[in-house]
């Protein structure tokens, strides 16, 4: 029987973790992610979730605990935001390098200085190159469902997964969320059985100093050097695309909700312009597309769901025939352009697709983004493109003088 409750994104994340029967949670509170682990800690305290909840003094230690717990074979979870994620940075690399299937909910928040507790995606985007898979959610149902999918993906490809969702915009907004049946989640996600577990019965030396070249170990087996291991991580992420798509498909079959694999489309088939975004901004863009269609402009949306690995092939497919692309994003690669915009352009290189592409930096530090503002931006871009302006970067609703 379906159990729908009206809940925040943070509650949805907590429910996802509970359904996955996570065994070790470590966390250090930070706005706006705090209610996720606060809720979980209550369940652990009451015995509703049989797990170890490890309190530590910093986010760096949080990820260290997750790495240690995952190394001994536990399904592990944490959530954080902004400076918390950045404080973990060194251990984020370590988790991915160790090929541990840790799942982290990143409740997206702007990064200081100056301080902001409000939403943008600079925090997780800045951790793009740590070797983590990154999924961006468009509503609270997708948060819960993506967390369940994240463990399936992570434990199959041995890469950590970051499930990202917009702080306050989703984390503190309540909406209907269906909580799937626990037994059915159990069938979809069996207990974690890692290929290697560190234990006193089977002592090992993990992650020692490694040399640039391949080397024979104590048993005489030729072992990878650093670079060979890095290639395997890259290969695993590139290969995870098929797993992500397949897990999404199986989830849709079992639970009746298809959030898309690597990306999703909205009214894209007959579109003359495509709006592109990630997370709640892409949801807002669907409203903008409706507004544009009311005024006679055939607009559609491409929502990038998985940012790493980047949906190279899907992006090429999605933008094959479109006359204009407008990318909205809540991040900036300082000194260049929006990170998503740059990645999309790179994916199109060499395909012969020469579509004009305009980039809007929007909603940094929680600045409100309304559907009509997105629609207006698209109208301005279409006029500008008609005038021959193929490339443009605009900061939406921002004093730029």
């Amino acid at each position: 029987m379906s159990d729908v409750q009206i809940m925040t994104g943070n509650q949805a994340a907590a429910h996802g973790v509970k359904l996955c029967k996570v065994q070790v949670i470590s966390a250090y509170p930070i706005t706006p992610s705090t209610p996720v682990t606060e809720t979980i800690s209550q369940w652990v305290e009451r015995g509703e979730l049989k797990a170890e909840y490890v309190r530590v003094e910093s986010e760096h230690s949080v990820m260290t605990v997750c790495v240690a717990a995952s190394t001994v074979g536990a399904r592990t979870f944490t959530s954080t935001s902004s400076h918390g994620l950045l404080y973990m940075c060194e251990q984020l690399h370590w988790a991915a390098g160790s090929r541990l299937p840790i799942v982290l909910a990143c409740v997206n928040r702007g990064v200081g200085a100056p301080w902001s507790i409000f939403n943008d995606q600079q925090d997780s985007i800045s951790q793009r190159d740590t070797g983590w898979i990154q999924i961006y959610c468009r509503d609270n149902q997708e948060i819960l469902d993506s967390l369940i999918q994240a463990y399936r993906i992570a434990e199959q490809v041995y890469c950590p997964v970051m499930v990202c969702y917009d702080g306050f915009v989703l984390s503190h907004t309540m909406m209907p969320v269906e909580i799937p049946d626990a037994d059915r989640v159990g069938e979809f996600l069996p207990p974690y059985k890692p290929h290697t577990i560190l234990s006193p019965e089977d002592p090992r030396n993990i992650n020692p100093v490694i040399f640039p070249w391949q080397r024979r170990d104590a048993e005489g087996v030729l072992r990878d050097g650093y670079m060979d291991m890095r290639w395997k991580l890259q290969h695993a992420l590139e290969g995870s695309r098929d797993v992500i798509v397949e897990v999404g498909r199986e989830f849709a079959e079992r639970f009746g909700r298809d959030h898309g694999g690597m990306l999703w489309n909205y009214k894209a088939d007959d579109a003359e312009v495509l709006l592109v975004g990630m997370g709640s901004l892409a949801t807002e863009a669907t409203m903008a597309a409706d507004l544009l269609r009311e005024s006679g402009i055939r607009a559609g949306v491409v929502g990038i769901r998985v940012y790493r690995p980047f949906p190279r092939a899907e992006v090429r497919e999605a933008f094959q025939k479109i006359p204009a692309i407008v990318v909205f994003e809540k991040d900036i690669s300082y000194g260049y352009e929006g990170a998503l915009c740059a990645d999309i352009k790179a994916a199109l290189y060499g395909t012969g697709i020469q579509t004009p592409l305009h980039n809007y930096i929007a909603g940094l530090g929680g600045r409100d983004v309304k559907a009509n503002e997105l629609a207006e931006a698209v109208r301005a871009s279409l006029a500008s493109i008609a005038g021959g302006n193929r490339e443009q970067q605009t900061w939406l609703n921002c004093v730029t003088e």
Partner: protein
Amino acid sequence: MYEVIWHGRGGQGVVIAAQILAESAYLQGFKGVTSAPTFGPERRGAPLTASTRISDHPIRTFAQIEKADIAVVLDPSLFGIVNILGTLKPQGLLLINSPQKAEEFEIEGSLDIATLDAAAVAIRFHLLKEGAPMVNTPMLGVFAKASGLVSLEHMEKGLKWKLSGGAAATNIAALRAAYEESSIRKTGK
């Protein structure tokens, strides 16, 4: 889509009221409901808003409400501090916790207005928190009566969904009284 903005002060149960309205609307059959506090830190006694969106279809906007269809004011002292009418559509519905009757309320324009001495109702039903009357539940009664959007029956279900047995019974009694005692002025536009 209907947009509702709630004006109150930190500690008055503004956010909870916005949530119960969303839940009640969902129970009534609206497929799309959201409720959100003003994003950011909250301080007891400071003016704050919360919002509820209600729609037949799943909601795809999370932007702040610019002009609401319905504004609910839990604390009438906010009129001198916050531009409440600026958050409401010109033909909107304004619900106020006030001992004044709706007819006596002097507000320009063509708004529909409903009032209730929600503090008195709260005190009568012992809805008190740290000595202060909790006016949020009574204002849900005013909402049901004046808006017709979410019925009294479903508000009661929403309260039962949210609250435990004893608290639900008291709140429902206050909700019904508030529904009966609301004073409404329609402009007939």
